[in-house]
């Protein structure tokens, strides 16, 4: 059983818990506890969760990890951004598939140089 690779889009804690990015702290605890209970009982309704990259398998480790991430206000902000990005670009999945089909056509990534105060080569 190989651990699936983490992905900020697919493993976004809001998606794992099935909650909106503006949910309250209490909702995170309540939903997390419920999902852990459902998973412990092996119930199908908790087995997968929806992401812009398609459905993913939900595990107790992912749920606990998601709860821990969203309890930390600083880390929650980052996940809120990612969840918003994913929702705003609802075509992300299709784009990924297109890019996979023709890698040469993937958008170039040039802004990274600015982050380092370097000139693009």
């Amino acid at each position, binding site marked *: *059983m190989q651990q699936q690779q983490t992905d900020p889009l697919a493993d976004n804690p809001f998606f794992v818990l099935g909650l909106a990015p503006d949910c309250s702290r*209490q909702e995170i*605890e*309540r939903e997390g506890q419920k999902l852990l209970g459902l998973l412990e*009982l092996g*119930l199908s309704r908790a087995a997968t969760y929806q992401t812009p990259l398609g459905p993913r398998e939900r595990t107790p480790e992912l749920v606990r990890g998601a709860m821990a991430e969203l309890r930390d206000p600083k880390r929650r902000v980052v996940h809120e951004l990612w969840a918003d990005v994913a929702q705003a670009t609802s075509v992300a999945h299709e784009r990924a598939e297109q*890019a996979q089909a023709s890698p040469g056509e*993937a958008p170039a990534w040039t802004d*990274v140089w600015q982050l380092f105060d370097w000139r693009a080569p």
Partner: protein
Amino acid sequence: MVRRHKRENSDTLLTRMTLTTPRYVGIDLGTTNSAAAVFDGEQVTAVRNAQGASLTPSVVRIDGRGNITVGARARRYLERDAKNTRGEFKRLMGTSQDLAFASADITRKPEELSAEVLKSLRKDIEDQFGFAPQRAVISVPALFELPQNAATSEAARLAGFEQVELLQEPIASALAAGWSAEESAGSWLVYDLGGGTFDASLLETRDGLLRVIGHDGDNFLGGRDFDWAIVDWLLAQIKQQTEVELSRSKPEHTAAITRLKQLAEEAKIELSRNESTEIAIIELPVPGGDPLDLEVSLDREMLETLCLALVDRTLDVCTRLCKTHGLDPGGLHHVVLVGGPSVMPIVRRRVQQVLQVAPTEGLDPMTLVARGAAIYAATAGLDARPESRPEPVPESQRVWLQHPAMSSDLTPHVVGKLVDSEPDKAPGEIRVLRSDGLWESPWTEVDEEGAFVLSVTLIPRRPNIFRIEGRRGPEQKVAIEPPTFTIVQGLTISDPPLSRTVGVALANNRVRVYFERGAPLPVRRTFNLRTVETVPAGSEECILKIPIVQGEFDDAHLCRLVGSLELRGEKLKQHLPAGAEVEVTIELDRGGRMSARALVPSLDQVFEQVAHLLVPEATPEVLAANLEATQQRVIELRAEAFQAKIISAIGRLNSIESRLASLETDVAAAAGGDTDAAQKARRAFLELDAEIEQIELDKRWPELEEEARETVIWASATIADFGLPHEAKLLTDTAKAIEQAKNNRDALELQRQLRLLARLGSTASLRHPHAWHHRFERAASKADQATDLVAAQALVKEGKVAINKDDVPALRRITQKLWQLLPDDPEDRKLGHNSGVR
């Protein structure tokens, strides 16, 4: 005797019948003293022992007839019958050290002695509450290593507990303090100065959720070090007054030193209440001379002078912890003091001065940890009462329930599933009713999987008992088993974070990280690894090791070996070739107890025995050599730092040098037969090694910056050409993290981020049309070094054919196989704890 036994049983039975709500037990198994507490969902009660005290000294005596005495009665013999009385064995937990009891001519392991203390506490609970607890939460220091946790669990098993969970001490303290606080919102710092260790934890409570933000500590600093500071002062006084020179490094002076240490501890406690004290040294044994009698005056001012540097060391840890988490000391809302030494006035004063907040009043620092552990037992649903099995109601339907045992939420969910249900007898609807009759849920349908989800309403700050009812039609009731369940409304505690990163050491001296520090426990993870050598079936000599390590470093040799899975040739069904796949799973429970397994799919064999789950031995010779080598390394590094004008390194080297000076005392005491000092020194060397490695890493900073620049250029270009959109986004994230690590000059973090970036670039580069061609050429150029030359040559031949046919999938398979046959550097493998996997 028989009658008495019967009476006890009937009393216990009576009490059990009256205990309608669960009871939760918490135990603080301390270095010097231990304590227990019982929580009933509303109140936490400290357990009193037979002497009426809430603290039981962690001391065990075994006399010539094998009679065992524990606690205060045993402590009286610690000095006058040292050969048959043992204390402070918690520091040796997880080591293979056997402790001898001379008169009975037996030895006991540290966990066996801890089990005696636990048995004694268990008996006290039975005497006071009428039941022998079966389940409990036992606290452990936050920085305990995995073998120490395993030894604690073993002690509990030996003491007769059916199930225990371990809890980090600072979380226990904060939980107890949070439970008693009226207004508990804000940031907490738990300052826990125990007998042997110091822990500082930063926590936050908000909306009833208690969250651990982080912790730091010093495994080598505790109240005992204060005692030693007084002992050293006493030795100087004795020399001055009598010209007799006693030394901690001489085995023949052990009896005198033990006596002085006890006097020092008493004086320290006395000076927490009084301004001065007289230390009466009577008949102090002096080898080859007359016993000494003298009286020495010690006042609080002198004590504080002796201890100030140690207290300030604890506060350095606190400020470092606050700084790491972006908190100014003034931003703290509460400071909770825990542990006996924390009652010293100088500790309270310095805490207030440095952390700018007065320690919280009204909490008993001695039983706080046990109280918190008892509350935690409630959150974990660990009812301590012996299992009572009432006759099930005929025709009742069993349900498997999942709900939080304790929750800050006033309306948590309860999830249930019918077990072994028969379609014509199973209930179609379920509801729950609170025992006060003031609330009930609506009837809820049982779904096609036999499951239901309900939301229940809790009364704040108390145990809420609910009855479950089932019905098949409006009139046909179905009895449910269990008929009731309890939820305590209180705090929700976040999952405890892992204190150190855990991974597997690889043959190239790197670490495959399984769980990063801070990962919420429990955790479980599996990785596919490959063997680096052939293990013949039936061979007794051939053992393939999978070392499990703890630490924050990329290089395995800098991390601590905490266990090892072994694939022994004698146990293999068939030969295990080099390059064979091994699925290695590591699991840690909420208390940090580790289990591991290795599955070899090709043989369908599982290996689960974790060997050598021990803290390594620390011989005086090795320690002395370590000391010399470290001192030499510091001198060299200082010279280089002066030459290169790296001021920060000079400061850190000075700090290391001052710690080396105090380590010299421990190494000398180890030579004098003090095994505890030897273990302390061993751990100190590991910490110092890691710090020195960090300084060396800092020395490489310009190279690392260059490496960062090159890696970013390469990864950006590769991802621009072959990356997917989400990889481009990941690149942005990683680039930001790299920039932050550069700004903070954090070499470790920079290395970590560069690894991530390299993986990202490497994934994208695989989409290059000739990616596998290039990889094959590189692997083929090293084929002459392969562990199996014939197989490697055959693969090279096959690869060339695949290139000619332009068969990329085949080329990829061949290249991967070829990689598995290429050897690791033997020196690296040795450093990597002789790992047999990669």
